[in-house]
């Protein structure tokens, strides 16, 4: 562009104006369609400009701490070492050795939040199958009523949801496996079990009554669900040589809260 507005011809100014307007539409379509948007307007439009969003890392919703600041999500893990002893850890862990600088602690924190949201947003296979079965029954009913167009569109929707669900499950499973692999690399161990837990926000009255933010009663559920259990072999990792096993089992965990006896299969309460 030239040095002065007057040096730009009218046509050039108009062309740039159209480009700027188009850019502003691309920009605003991000938060207008993510995380929620109109199925009839902003979402289809955002889909059209999504190549630009993806190329330039745009299209964010910018809903910081919205709609409400909520509970934190923790990934707890239980390692079985080569000698059969078990150790537990958790991430994110503000007191852990792997969280300096603070920005890196935040990366671990966001990883646990992502794992949680991936699980929370993806229904269980049984629920998906039940829903798909209901939709297929509806399609059959529509076909019997002579409404073949609706029936075929429902069937197409079921097929698409099957593909989408399979992709989502594959994505989540791969993420959990890679996290398990990474934790085994850092801490050693032959097996790992990963669990998800929430840390609820205490009420002001709880704190006034002397509760601490770290009290176990704010952890939910009391028996956290297992999201993955793997051995090194299952993850395609090399088995540890004996000396490496001895060394890795001495390495500090992000959270050295307790050692669990080899016979106890279930993870203890933090």
């Amino acid at each position, binding site marked *: 562009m030239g*040095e002065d507005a007057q040096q730009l011809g009218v046509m050039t100014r108009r062309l740039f*104006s159209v480009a700027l307007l188009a850019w502003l539409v691309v920009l605003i379509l991000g*938060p207008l369609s993510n995380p929620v948007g109109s199925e009839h307007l902003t979402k289809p439009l955002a889909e059209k400009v*999504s190549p630009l969003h993806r190329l330039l890392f745009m299209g964010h919703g910018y809903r910081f701490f919205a709609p*409400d600041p909520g509970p934190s999500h923790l990934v707890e893990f239980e390692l079985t070492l080569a000698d059969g002893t078990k150790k537990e850890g958790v991430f994110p862990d503000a007191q852990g050795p792997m969280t300096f600088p*603070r920005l890196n602690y935040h990366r671990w924190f966001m990883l646990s939040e992502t794992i949680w949201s991936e699980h929370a947003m993806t229904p269980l296979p049984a629920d998906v199958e039940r829903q798909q079965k209901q939709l297929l029954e509806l399609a059959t009913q529509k076909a019997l009523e002579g409404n073949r167009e609706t029936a075929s569109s429902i069937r197409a929707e079921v097929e698409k949801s099957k593909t989408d669900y399979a992709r989502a499950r594959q994505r989540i499973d791969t993420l959990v496996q890679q996290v398990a692999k990474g934790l085994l690399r850092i801490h050693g161990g032959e097996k790992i079990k990963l669990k998800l837990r929430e*840390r609820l*926000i205490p009420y002001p009255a709880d704190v006034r009554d002397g509760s601490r933010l770290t009290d176990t009663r704010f952890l939910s559920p009391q028996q956290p669900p297992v999201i993955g259990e793997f051995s090194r072999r299952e993850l395609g990792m090399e088995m540890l040589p004996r000396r490496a096993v001895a060394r890795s089992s001495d390495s500090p965990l992000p959270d050295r809260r307790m050692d669990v006896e080899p016979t106890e299969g279930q993870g203890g309460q933090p």
Partner: protein
Amino acid sequence: MNWIRQVEQAWDRFWFKPRGGETLGLIRLLTGLIVAYMLLAWTPLLTTFLGADGMIPSAYSQQLYGSKLAWTHLGWIESGSLLWTVHLVAIVMAALFAAGIGTPVTGPLVALLVISYSNRATGVLFGLDQIAAFLTLYLSFADCGESFSANRWLGSNKEHRRSNIRNNVAIRLIQIHLCVVYLFAGLGKCQGATWWNGEAIWGAIASYEYQTLDMTWMADQMWLVSIATMVVLFFEVSYAALIWPKLTRPVMLLLAVPLHLGVGLCMGMLEFGLIMLVANLSFVDFLNWPERSS
């Protein structure tokens, strides 16, 4: 028709008035430093998170978005030593950009690096990465290497007060993008009950995972929590309107400082707080010296 002409003239004044590079130079320096720090902070986690067999699957971003356009150069690197080399080059590029050296090259390169690292690290990102991405994107085409620059100290920059339209477009895009960020952050909060009952800030300060400064003493002063909650909500919802008039702009800029430093110091997100303040510099008038047309 007169009204249309007036709108057209106002539009031209808004976008196509030449502007010096002083403000952009300062934004470039600070954004460059933050980006260099972000890259440097990746170093201890580089192979753990971003390696070929790292915790974040290399195709995670593309799988999540269902698009191969969520590109990353780190996804093409299998060798660990090459990854370290490329990472080192990225840190040097960000440092050069911060220093204002070779900005016509380092500017676009740093913008691409921020996008690429963000696409590779999808799953461990937060607001900092999003703000850094749009700031570097707009700085990449601006003439921002002349002020607050090593060139100036080295005496190789004789013409440091060059105004042009590119700089104005970059500043305007940063300003508008920032307004969009605040507006949707505020509108999103309007859906939450705790932002209406005045307890939302409690939810932030009583989150153990975020806490760096213990502010839970505010449990005894919930009226203070309510005031802070309302101020944050008011600030974010009204920013896009009140930042433009000269009368209210200083108030909004002054409110931004404790808000973002508070988030930074109490919730351990200092980099995020700082980069939001850097983006707010785009509205600081005393550094913006639009050329008075002759």
